[in-house]
């Protein structure tokens, strides 16, 4: 029986999260003795529903969704690893806005009021000394819609992932206002984790371990040899040239989850931060051990040893 | 025979209406009383003609007899049982009611399906009656490709083909030319004689009524009621001699024409009551 891994992207994205797809393609899972089948869905809610329907064994979902589900006691899911702790976001704007300080009075696109990207952007802009309240906030929904709206001139700035930014074919009149590094520095939160239902953890523990082991191994290989990632991604880069992919791979240095991506401090910080957002104003409190399980990563690290180049496995 | 005879008489009645009332709801909420206290007993094998001014309720009587609508008061019985549509009753509708998406043959076939016939037998019968009304050449045509009279003949073929024990006919020859009408009358008499069926026949022609019927029922308007019932005591078959020169024929004809004239012109319920007739007009003038 194959191990079904639910992912919310449709083909390998140009971020480290691609390890899940590439591990299938490059045979890493097979080498660990687990037959992984990728199930592709559009969004986190579909991924959650898939786990509950028994249509998947592990899913890559947003931490905010996991916290909601745990707090309302409506699903028994735990995070076991995070192949890509934070998707690299940036703030793009019209070219005539060259400094965040110019933003007040302009329109700014978010997914919806109170959504994770809204809260992240608030935090990033605050770090740049800009109060989000002084901006004209527009709720625009899906990331591609936000990018379209920016490109069409209907908003002046918005947050998007580096993948969306890179795939925009025509960027005339647009520029990056806050780069991905600055963005992450201002808002160092984990936004996606791989969860499994507790029942799967009990019944297929060996498979879960094998999956995590494969992801960690591949992350280490890419971390050591960025060119390997660029080569593996070549068919999926869209309009990106091999050079650009190579450049990107280099820029991901230090972000690969070489130790399973489970840092208790980061996760706790993330939890506290998410609880400070508007969406969670009335949500019951939870503790880290309710939604995260370190035993899998610990077992994997016991076998593979800890990689000292990054991704500190704090407990 | 269906059911057991009952009612007041001991003789079985083919059709029996007793004290039948019928009122239609109209759109402005005002109920329209259409039939009032209609009582009519017809024995099997009897040919009854129904005569009366336009709108007096003749069609409504036929629909009641077929069990298509129910009376508001009184009873309608066929061979002693409450009237209901069945293959032993045939109805030739005033407005033909052909199925537009069925060919002539399929229209006739549709009616035959209620009979316990084998496929081949049914097909043979449909073709035979289509030939009888002179439409063999048009058996595969659709109703919209037919002339008015041809449509009426399809309706005739459909009813005849069922060879029913009771035939309800609503002005069945109105759209057919005089000669074809005569042919159809002959075919009708043939069928009637052969099968001893009961016929309830609505017509606007006094001549046709006398020529065909054993009994003539004259209806008056608003609400429809039976004014008079007359037996036609002329020898049959009436085709073989010049029936019109028979003095009984002439008396009957004159009487009916005068009564019709009264019903249309002098009855205060008539739509033409008090109509001024410029030009001389005699009540017993021929009916065109």
């Amino acid at each position: 029986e194959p191990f079904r891994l639910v992912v919310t992207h449709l083909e390998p994205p140009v971020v480290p999260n691609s390890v899940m797809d590439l591990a299938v393609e490059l045979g890493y899972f097979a080498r660990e003795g687990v037959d992984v089948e990728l199930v592709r869905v559009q969004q986190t809610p579909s991924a959650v529903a898939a786990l509950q329907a028994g249509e998947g064994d592990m899913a890559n979902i947003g931490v905010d969704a996991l916290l909601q589900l745990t707090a309302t006691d409506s699903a028994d899911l735990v995070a076991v690893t995070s192949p890509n702790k934070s998707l690299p976001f940036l703030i793009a704007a019209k070219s005539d806005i060259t400094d965040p300080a110019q933003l007040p009075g302009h329109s700014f696109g978010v997914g919806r009021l109170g959504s994770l990207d809204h809260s992240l952007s608030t935090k990033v802009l605050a770090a740049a000394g800009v109060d989000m309240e002084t901006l004209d906030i527009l709720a625009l929904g899906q990331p591609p819609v936000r990018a379209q709206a920016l490109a069409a001139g209907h908003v002046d700035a918005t947050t998007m992932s580096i993948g969306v930014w890179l795939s925009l074919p025509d960027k005339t009149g647009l520029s990056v206002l806050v780069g991905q590094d600055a963005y992450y520095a201002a808002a160092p939160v984990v936004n996606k984790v791989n969860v499994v239902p507790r029942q799967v953890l009990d019944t297929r523990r060996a498979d879960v371990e094998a999956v995590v082991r494969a992801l960690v191994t591949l992350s280490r290989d890419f971390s050591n040899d960025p060119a390997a990632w660029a080569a593996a991604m070549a068919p999926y880069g869209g309009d990106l040239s091999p050079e650009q992919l190579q450049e990107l791979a280099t820029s991901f240095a230090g972000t690969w989850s070489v130790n399973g991506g489970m840092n208790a401090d980061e996760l706790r910080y993330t939890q506290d931060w998410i609880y400070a957002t508007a969406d969670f104003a009335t949500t019951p409190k939870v503790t880290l051990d309710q939604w995260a399980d370190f035993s899998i990563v610990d077992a994997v690290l016991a076998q593979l040893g800890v990689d000292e180049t990054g991704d500190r496995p704090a407990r | 025979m269906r059911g057991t005879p009952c009612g007041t008489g001991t003789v079985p009645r083919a059709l029996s209406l007793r004290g039948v009332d019928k009122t239609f709801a109209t759109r402005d909420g005002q109920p329209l009383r259409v039939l009032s206290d209609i009582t009519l007993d017809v024995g099997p094998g009897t040919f009854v003609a129904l005569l009366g001014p336009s709108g007096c309720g003749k069609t409504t009587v036929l629909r009641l007899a077929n069990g298509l609508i129910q009376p508001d008061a009184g009873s309608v019985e066929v061979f002693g049982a409450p009237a209901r549509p069945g293959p032993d009753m045939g109805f030739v509708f005033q407005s033909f009611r052909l199925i537009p998406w069925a060919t002539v043959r399929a229209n006739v076939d549709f009616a035959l399906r209620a009979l316990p016939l084998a496929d081949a037998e049914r097909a043979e019968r449909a073709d035979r009656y289509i030939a009888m009304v002179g439409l063999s050449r048009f058996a595969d045509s659709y109703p919209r490709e037919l002339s008015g009279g041809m449509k009426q003949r399809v309706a005739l073929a459909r009813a005849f083909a069922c060879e029913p024990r009771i035939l309800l006919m609503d002005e069945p020859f109105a759209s057919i030319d005089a000669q074809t009408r005569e042919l159809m009358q002959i075919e009708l008499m043939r069928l009637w004689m052969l099968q001893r069926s009961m016929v309830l026949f609505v017509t606007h022609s006094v001549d046709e009524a006398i020529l065909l019927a054993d009994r003539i029922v004259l209806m008056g308007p608003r609400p429809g009621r039976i004014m008079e019932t007359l037996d036609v005591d002329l020898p049959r078959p009436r085709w073989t001699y010049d029936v019109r020169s028979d003095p009984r024929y002439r008396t009957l004809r004159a009487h009916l024409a005068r009564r019709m004239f009264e019903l249309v012109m002098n009855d205060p319920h008539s739509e033409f009551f008090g109509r001024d007739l410029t030009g001389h007009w005699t009540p017993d003038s021929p009916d065109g």
Partner: protein
Amino acid sequence: MILLLRTAFLVLLVGLWYLAAANVGRNVIATPLETLDAARRLAESGRLLSAVGDTLRVYLTGFALAALVAIPAGVLMGTVRILGKTLDIFVFALAATPRVAFIPLIIVLLGLGLEAKVFIVFLGAIMPILINTYAGVQAVDDELIEMARSVAASRARIFWRIILPSAVPFTVAGLRIGATIGLINTVVAELYTAVSGLGGLLALFGNTFRMAEYLVIVITLALIGVVVTEILRQAERRLEGWRGKG
């Protein structure tokens, strides 16, 4: 003649497309040539064909099921008036509720695979067919029904020979609308359950702004719609031949 006019209109449309592509940014519309190129590439890679196959399987199964359920249900609701009057309000309520809202429930009950997708298509396509058939049965000529009763036609014969043929223009229009909505729902299903087929490609190319490929998928969907409605037109021509309108 008609073919000529249609071609002329098509040429006009492609012209407009050219103009639009020239005037709107590259993020939104690719030119016809780029699209043609993308179509060739997609076709050669075999990706388009396999996606079309996936989509058609979901679409045709769901649509056929919808027709099979909706036509009898519509006739039943139209003939048994008490049933129709009781249920129709719920039918309209269900029809007005976004299918997307049911997707979590559908996933839990039917999973992410073919069954769930077919069911979403079914839900979308059934409503127009049902509503139209229901209306068609109510519009049937009472005089014909009375004639049929008078010749003691069985319920089944009245259904097959009077009610159904008389409702044909309604039902075919309902099938047309149902076919288009079913196709749209196929895309929705392919987006919201396990991503697959043309819907999956649409999302993929849309999210990554590969507009030439995106347009190829859009046009493929439109063509599927055209083929299905043309098949329906041929069916209608047979059924409605008696009108003699060609």
